[in-house]
């Protein structure tokens, strides 16, 4: 991994159209500004990890079929009405 030391208000370029600016440093938190073309997606990395884990949990259930599960929803609807 490339490690660069930067001060507040300095930045790095990734390729020629993505710029990451160090906006503020406070204690153990750093605020980054990202200038990127609108066709680039930027998310916190833990969001990817969380969605991966959720997908694994969703795919990993032993559920052979959904028999009766739909009834839960119908029952719920009836109770409410």
């Amino acid at each position, binding site marked *: 991994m490339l490690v660069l030391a930067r001060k507040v208000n300095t930045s790095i370029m990734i390729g020629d159209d993505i710029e990451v600016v160090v906006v503020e440093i406070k204690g153990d938190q750093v605020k980054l500004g990202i200038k990127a073309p609108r*066709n*680039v997606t930027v998310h916190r990395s833990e969001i990817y990890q*969380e969605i991966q884990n*959720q997908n694994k949990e*969703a795919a990993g259930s032993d*559920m*052979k079929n*959904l*028999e009766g599960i739909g009834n*839960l929803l119908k029952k719920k609807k009836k109770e409410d009405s």
Partner: protein
Amino acid sequence: MNLAQKYNENESTMIKLQTRSLDIVDVNPETFLSFQEGLFGFGSYKEFVIIPDPGEFPFEWLQSTESPDLAFILIAPNEVFSQKYEPVVALADLNQLNIKSIKECKIYTIVTIPQKSPQDMTANYQGPILVNESLKAGRQIISLDEDHKLRVRVLDLLES
């Protein structure tokens, strides 16, 4: 289109697909959806088909055509719940699906059903599945709306 119609159209082109939960199902390969980048955590599976559960509305299956063991349970929230769900989609994701607006695609959420307490099933509002039916392409995206949570309790959605 109801289920019977979906299953009966172009009967001659139907093939048999081994699925995880519905045994062998007749499907039309023309309805197969390409997921260029797979799903998060499942990047190597690039093709799925959506099969409505024959018994348990409103659930549908996102079944891998490449691995019978890989399937996800889906709900299309806007067809089931009164509360409107509109993920905020990055332009890059719209471009990948070749659409200009979210209104041009179908929105599904993956449902997680805990075995011991199915009443606590949740829908993933943070990472929905978008489908461009005319392009036969699907994509899991991350909604940029931070109110769209990873686990939204389905039974609570029925109350709202």
